[in-house]
């Protein structure tokens, strides 16, 4: 997975900090530093039992928590099942897609 990176230069490069050349300063790309959501969306093929099992396998959820997320997907069309750093979020989305769930990444605005 792609690690978080910094940009050389950019707006902070105009800083007046003495002794630091502008092209040696870095800043964090805002969207990579943000919290990312793993969102699972409803579909009419995957079975409820299967979805609960997948949540337990992928996230290690207890059955009740997994079931709550499954019902949220079923009744509201989507559920945020995890949020955090982008790299981990990508990993989870990839695992969920291997199980054929409709999962995607979203960033917190």
């Amino acid at each position, binding site marked *: *997975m792609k690690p978080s990176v910094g940009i050389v230069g950019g707006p902070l490069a105009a800083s007046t900090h003495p002794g630091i050349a502008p092209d040696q300063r870095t800043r964090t790309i805002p969207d990579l530093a943000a919290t990312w959501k793993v969102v699972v969306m409803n579909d009419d*093929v995957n079975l409820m*039992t299967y979805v*609960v*099992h997948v949540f337990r396998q992928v996230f290690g959820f207890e059955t*009740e928590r997994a079931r709550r997320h499954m019902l949220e997907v079923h009744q509201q069309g989507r559920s945020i099942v995890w949020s955090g750093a982008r790299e981990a979020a990508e990993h989870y989305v990839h695992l969920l897609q291997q199980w*054929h769930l409709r999962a*995607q990444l979203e960033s917190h605005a």
Partner: protein
Amino acid sequence: MPEQPAPSDPGRPVARLRFSPPLRELLSAIVTRVHTAAVETPDAPPPPGAHPAQLPDPDLDAAWAEGLREREEFDNHALLALVVNPKFGLADLPLTPPAAEAIARASVRVRLHLRQTLLRDLNSVELDGDLDVFRLPPIEQQGYACFRLLAHLEEDLIHQLDPGLAKS
């Protein structure tokens, strides 16, 4: 394919559904068709929702798709090995847990394929079983029978893999 456990292993998942041989042959033909299509068209676009919208990197995009393909190929082989077994549907067939999970995932893949092809005109309620199946054209009846059979297989395997689900 993971090694097959001995039939007497307790607590191991078992493919234990019972159905007639013609249905197994039909299922085998459909699973083979989906598997062949996946192998022959590796660059085919992934199903809707397969990619996160915000992937910014072509290399990551390619690695992402390749990871999904590798998993799908492994899973399809596990399901194919089951459905071509002439004893499937007539006797209990023991599985390793990884094989049972692979079969469950591959069953979903085949059901998604059927949903997008033969069963695309059905609504969600009909897909769940609330329909007069005999009003469908024969080819759709066959697709529907396989769709339902794979759903039963999948659910039975999940309950064996995760017995706690039935208790809560």
